[in-house]
């Protein structure tokens, strides 16, 4: 079970709590985690990554295990602690403006 923490605005939009737990099939990567998240919460499509290009939105960051994974390949394996559910995958709204 993968644990994902969402920023406040996306929790409101998805009508969920701060942490959601999802089963992810196959290798645990940014892409497979976000695919599973968007499948479970379709209203989040387009709000974390672009609908078409699948690029991360510029003011959204991905953190886990005290590391900034925002610039890692979306197909790179996430840390084992995220894959095991010991640590959450954090989706963060960057601190930028008002």
């Amino acid at each position, binding site marked *: 079970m993968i644990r994902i923490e969402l*920023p406040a*605005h*996306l929790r409101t*939009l998805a009508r969920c709590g701060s942490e959601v737990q999802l089963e992810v099939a196959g290798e645990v990567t940014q892409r497979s985690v976000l695919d599973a998240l968007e499948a479970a919460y379709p*209203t989040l*499509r*387009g*709000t*974390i990554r*672009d*609908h*078409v290009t699948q690029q991360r*939105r510029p*003011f*959204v960051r991905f953190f886990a295990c005290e590391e900034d994974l925002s610039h890692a390949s979306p197909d790179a394996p996430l840390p084992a602690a995220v894959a095991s559910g010991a640590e959450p995958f954090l989706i963060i*709204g*960057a601190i*930028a*403006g008002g």
Partner: protein
Amino acid sequence: MSSVRVLVGTRKGAFILTSDGRRERWEVNGPYFGGWEMYHLKGSPADPNRIYASQCSGWHGQVMQRSSDGGKTWEPVGNKFVYDGVPGTHQWYDGTPHPWEFKRVWHLEPSLSDPDTVYAGVEDAALFRSTDAGQTWQELPGLRGHGSGPHWQPGAGGMCLHTIILDPSNPQRIYIAISAAGAFRTDDGGVTWKPINRGLYSKYIPDPSAEVGHCIHHIAMHPSRPGVLFMQKHWDVMRSGDAGESWQKVSGNLPVDFGFVIDVHAHEPETIYVVPIKSDGEHYPPEGKLRVYRSRTGGNEWEALSDGLPQSDCYVDVLRDAMAVDSLDSCGIYFGTTGGQVYASADSGDHWAPIVRDLPSVLSVEVQTLP
């Protein structure tokens, strides 16, 4: 007794203001979607309980919302806006080619007859339509594909399609306006478009009388006179009596003819309203006095309306979609400011009072007149 519902979009959420037909006591509900930029909310003329809203943020992009109960509850609908085919380029601020990129929805225009059909004007400028109540959106590519598209350029606020006017007498005719490309009209339901900018004169573009490139801020039409259009341009207030084929300047005795909003009285098709703004470099009213100007002659002869509006130290702006009228017997006029005030007049502009004073900066105001 009739009532009114005022839909207010702000930089930090949406608000719904309601009153009975006297328009003296108001209930303020909101914020809805707090913290998000609410560019525009608009109700369906065919079903007033159906309201569409454009919600966006710099962090999470575009979200679309739909209500089927007059704004009490909302559900997110489709937010996928993909240009038809290869988008190509328009001009960037420096004149270089820049790829078309979807940024946000500026304006929503529900169909006059079908609550499930709604048009969306977007940045970078294009027109989209949904026929399934906002679940999916399809571009009407003939507009962006007009031969002049590669020469369109953004205004300071972005290259936005901000005005959509549906002709009640002819379902095939739609007017739109883009900052800073100009006005366009389709007579075949959106398949093909023609620029309708003859008579516009803009000193800030290389050819002041060019076919496209004009920074139109807003256009208004009275439903009983669908061939008569009123325009607030970057500078100049203009009138067309021939569906946009030609335009005449009607700034007349306005103290300054820069501004953003323009609207038409609900029952007097030649009575129009603007809010003069000092200049394009100073987006606030002349002399620190907030005044609406009314013309009862379709322009040229204007009178200042200031009773109840601040007449000193007022430095707010009134943005292009932030004025609307109701259709009660005594026509109500409404506008919102970047200072967060929403002002209303229940007597065609003679007297004004704030409905609410301290909202976030107001982006848009629409009014529904309810039976």
